[in-house]
């Protein structure tokens, strides 16, 4: 019986020839990630073990991206725990203000993640790296602490679901819309405990950035990981960023799937997920919901391709007078590239606020919190109650083109509607 790519990576890291769904394994880890919210608890637990060193100081990544630049004294204290720990234990990959990026944009960009790797991160969107053909999943702080000590963790081998996308993409349809469509179809627990494997001719044509956006939101369907086949684009992306020898795994033709779903992408239009769940998808066109704020950024859609798309829509236009438009390049490199390409001129003329990289408003941290009754279109990944501020506020998830067009219109629109 064949194996899926997820099963093959897990088997290899557990030192086994084969694994099957439901099996409990102990896997060696190639990378362990934490951020300024989750790592403080992990560091405390690790310190309580009294160990003199971590399992591998090159394989732990600490990214202070959520409440940075430090938004208050308490956050500053949390980040300091990361900095002190990194110095004491010689952690090479510690990233703070000025060098930091939103973690799931930063790690692929730095070449720290790539094909065939087995990665855990104390952040639910760690599933992002599946876009590069890695097995990668979110865990909690205690898992992170244990992994820093042992370099291993336990997994239940997940069943896999296959999602096949065929057809051309309609104008302004992006990876964001493909994943929103999927979540809208199967629901926020539709892939609970399962691997989500994305394939088909549309996926082959999709950029790495589009795939990162899709894998990023696997967790919003309850998925354990999202994963893509490694192709020429993946190899090029990874080899430009790292000289590691990646091992490429591929699903066997006779691999077993719990479920297979096929989508005709010519029927998919730009989508918006309405409050308060990512599964509540509706077409952007004709929606007309009045809004107060637009946020373009995050680990889902804060990469250069996303900013280019937003700039294309905003060029020569201004945000509606009632709209606060906030643009957040996800990393310092994205920031520099956007500036070099003149995108900032477009954003500034559109009267946008441009922020330093941070997760900030996505989780209601800082840099764009909503008041009671306010509505925001965001290119982020969650629209739960109170996610971006007051529990009485609302978040609508969309791609960067829809978000930019909605900023101009002052209400949710399809980009066509502002021409």
């Amino acid at each position, binding site marked *: 019986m064949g194996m899926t790519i997820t099963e093959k990576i897990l088997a290899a890291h557990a030192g086994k020839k084969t694994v099957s769904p439901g099996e409990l394994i102990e896997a060696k880890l190639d990378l362990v990630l934490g951020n300024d919210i989750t790592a403080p608890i992990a560091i405390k637990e690790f310190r309580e073990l009294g160990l003199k060193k971590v399992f591998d100081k090159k394989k732990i990544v600490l990214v202070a991206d959520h*409440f940075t630049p430090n938004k208050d004294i*308490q956050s500053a204290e949390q980040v300091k725990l990361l900095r002190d720990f990194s110095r004491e234990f010689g952690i090479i990959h510690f990233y703070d203000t000025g060098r930091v990026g939103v973690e799931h944009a930063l790690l692929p960009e730095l070449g720290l993640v790539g094909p065939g790797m087995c990665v855990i991160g104390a952040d639910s969107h760690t599933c992002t790296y599946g876009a590069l053909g890695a097995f990668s999943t*979110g865990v909690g702080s205690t898992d992170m602490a244990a992994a820093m000590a042992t370099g291993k963790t336990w997994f239940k081998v997940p069943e896999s679901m296959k999602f096949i996308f065929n057809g051309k993409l309609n104008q302004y349809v992006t990876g964001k819309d493909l994943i929103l469509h999927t979540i809208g179809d199967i629901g*926020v627990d539709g892939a609970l405990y399962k691997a989500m494997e994305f394939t088909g001719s549309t996926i082959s044509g999709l950029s790495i950035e589009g795939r990162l956006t899709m894998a990023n939101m696997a967790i919003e369907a309850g998925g354990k990981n999202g994963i893509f086949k490694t192709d020429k684009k993946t190899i090029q992306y990874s080899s430009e960023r790292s000289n590691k020898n990646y091992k490429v795994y591929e699903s066997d033709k006779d691999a077993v799937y719990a479920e297979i779903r096929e989508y005709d992408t010519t029927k998919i239009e730009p989508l918006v997920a309405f409050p308060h769940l990512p599964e509540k998808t509706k077409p952007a066109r004709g929606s007309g919901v009045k809004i107060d704020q637009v946020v373009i950024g995050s680990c889902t859609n804060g990469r250069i391709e996303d900013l280019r798309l937003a700039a294309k829509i905003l060029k020569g236009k201004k945000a509606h007078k009632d709209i606060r438009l906030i643009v957040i390049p996800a990393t310092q490199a994205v920031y520099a590239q956007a500036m070099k390409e003149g995108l900032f001129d477009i954003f500034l003329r559109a009267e946008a606020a441009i922020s330093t990289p941070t997760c900030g408003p996505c989780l209601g941290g800082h840099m764009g919190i909503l008041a009671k009754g306010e509505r925001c279109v965001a290119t982020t990944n*969650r629209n739960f109650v109170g996610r971006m501020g007051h529990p009485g506020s609302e978040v609508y998830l969309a791609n960067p083109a829809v978000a930019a067009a909605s900023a101009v219109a002052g209400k949710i629109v399809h980009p066509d509607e502002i021409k």
Partner: protein
Amino acid sequence: MKSTGKVWKFGNDINTDEIIPARYLNVSDPKELAKHCMEDADPDFIKKISAGDIIVAGKNFGCGSSREHAPIAIKSANISCVLAESFARIFYRNCLNMGLPILEAPEAAKEIKEGNTIEINFDNGEITDKTTGKVYKAKPFPPFMQDLIAKGGLMNKIRSELSL
């Protein structure tokens, strides 16, 4: 081990932002986190509950962020157990790792009403609704996870493995 407590009911897809909103994540002190437990799902929750009470919820409890602050907030609010139709996977994993008792029991979670008093026997997975007299059975944990729970969570398991 047994727990008896009054039931507080919640619906489907209760996410970690509702369990502990991110605006309180600039600290990781369990006592501070407990003050805001379930705040965005029920602002008065923490005022209403007594030690030992039990949360009974629908499908996909704990979905969203990986923040362990969520089970920490529930545990330090002295909730004795969370019983649900199903749990999101990172939350489930976090509870086993840090020692918040949870049980998956779809029938019980659907039928048991808010305000009822229930008794949970963790040794055999039996849930008794003291108000109605009905007895339910929770899904058993696989042996690996039973071992994790018996050892008192992941860090204690690591301690014994590393002989610390």
